């Protein structure tokens, strides 16, 4: 299992559009991708749950990767957050 922290820079947070992109990115990997913020967790492959976390600008999220391709996912998801959120 691997994890990383990231502080959201996007002024609106994980809103619909980046959430959609995030779900699609997470779906590229076989491993479990979980986003945790403010004590709540969501499967990053599930759009509605993810949006319902209500992650806003300035909040720190923890992204947890667990599964066979977690190394690739670790790189890929970190890259994704930097570029999109």
């Amino acid at each position: 299992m691997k994890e990383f922290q990231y502080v959201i820079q996007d002024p609106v947070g994980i809103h619909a559009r980046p959430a959609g992109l995030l779900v699609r990115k997470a779906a590229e990997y076989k491993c479990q991708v979980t986003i945790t913020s403010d004590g709540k967790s969501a499967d990053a492959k599930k759009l509605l749950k993810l949006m319902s976390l209500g992650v806003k600008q300035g909040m720190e999220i923890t992204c947890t990767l667990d599964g066979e391709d977690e190394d690739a996912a670790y790189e890929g998801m970190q890259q994704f957050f930097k570029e999109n959120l």
Partner: protein
Amino acid sequence: MNKYNGKSVLKGIAVGRIFLYQKQAYQVVKTEITDIDAEICRYKQAVETAKEQLTALYDAALVNVGEDHAMIFDIHRMMLEDDDYLEAIEDVVKEGLNAEYAVETAQDQFAELFASMDDEYMKARATDIKDVSQRVIRILMGIPEDGIPTDEPVILVADDLTPSETVKMDKNKILAFVTVRGSSNSHTAILARSMNLPALVNTGMEPSEEWNGKVGVVDGFNGEFLIEPDQELLDEMIRRKNQWVADLEALEQLKGKDNVTSDGRKVHIYANIGKVSDADAALSADAGGIGLFRSEFLYLGRDTFPTEEEQYISYKTVLEKMDGRKVIIRTLDIGADKKVDYFNLEPEENPALGYRAIRICLDRPEIFITQLRAIYRASAYGQAAIMFPMIVSVEEVRRVKEIVEQVKGELEVEGYPMGDVELGIMVETPAAAVIAGELAKEVDFFSIGTNDLTQYTLAVDRQNQKLESTCNTHHPAVLKLIEMTVQSAHNAGIWAGICGELAADTDLTETFLDMGVDELSVSPSAVLKVRKAVRDI
């Protein structure tokens, strides 16, 4: 039988079933089902169909508005792939309940989740959940997207209709309109006239769900809406409806005939249109051209500016349909009274006198230039003319012409073929009418917009229902301004037409001909009526 009175906007009669138009035009009923597997299959198919629709919408939006705005349809589609959402639906179906109810339950559950968040942006996402769920429910119930559930045309009853709703309405499914609010200048009224359908507005009634599917009669001659009339009255109304249709058919006989008086005076009768498909109505009414092509349809009911390409295709299509007949395109006539958020117009106390039409175009030339480029590119495919709305000064016309020259120069360099395009102005402010002599030296034609000219001359808000009696369109001041404008045009050797509602007022047809008006532009449904009035002189 119930009877309501309203203001009639078209003298005609319709008999048919009533349909209550609502934003959410269905009622989900909770029913118990026995074959759970079949019901799950049914909901899954509906979800698949919804995803196909959303993919098509996404593809269309990608071309028209770009990826940023198309994304919403992609997100809707992803919502329909969300396991939690699908499980929520299945859980309800597994309890032995129908798919429609299950989708609505899941919708409420997730909408509630978002609505309860303390973030305004996320709260608004409840709308997306509802939108996508309602799409699935409509598919399950077999309701097409415009909300009219049958193939049989209906009498549409609504509170009032917004411009974007009227833009989307399928004309073949409507027999008549009856609205609770609205004036004879409301969008419902304008739509009804352009469709040649009886309509009553401002009825003040309280529509009831129970009216759905009942037989109704719209009597546009007496301004009455009847619900479930007795057989005797119904027969009488059907007889009168048939008479009305027969009279219309008599007008049909005038197709192909000249607009000429018995003493040999001729006038052009053109049609006013508000979107591309209206050109068919203009042609079938035997209009000599398009005297007013309102371009607002390109801007309303959307979130981004229409691209040059989109506009070009619309103009080109109309020019080709009209096959060499003149098509006068009026440039953007929008102000704070229209709901176009992406223009970022500030709310105004008095939008009719505000930042609108040519004032926006001259202040934000990028919007104007896109439209002009599209028109000039399309001008290679027919006889295009352009007119500019809300002109009050010679200076404005000169600035407009400078921009036009710039656009033409650029297109020439880019190698686009262009036709000869007449440039004219709308004379719809008292200022323009008074200085018509000066303005006439600058342009090729005048088109008198009597709706605004009346409003501005009489200081009467034409949307205000209480002032309809004060809004005397035959007021001598208005007629005097029209006469002055026509004379000024002729003195300068240019032509003048009328494109407001007054052009179709057959009580004035002879007056206008005596003034020397060269062209009358009316809704397609009034073309033959005005032709008859001309031929009767």
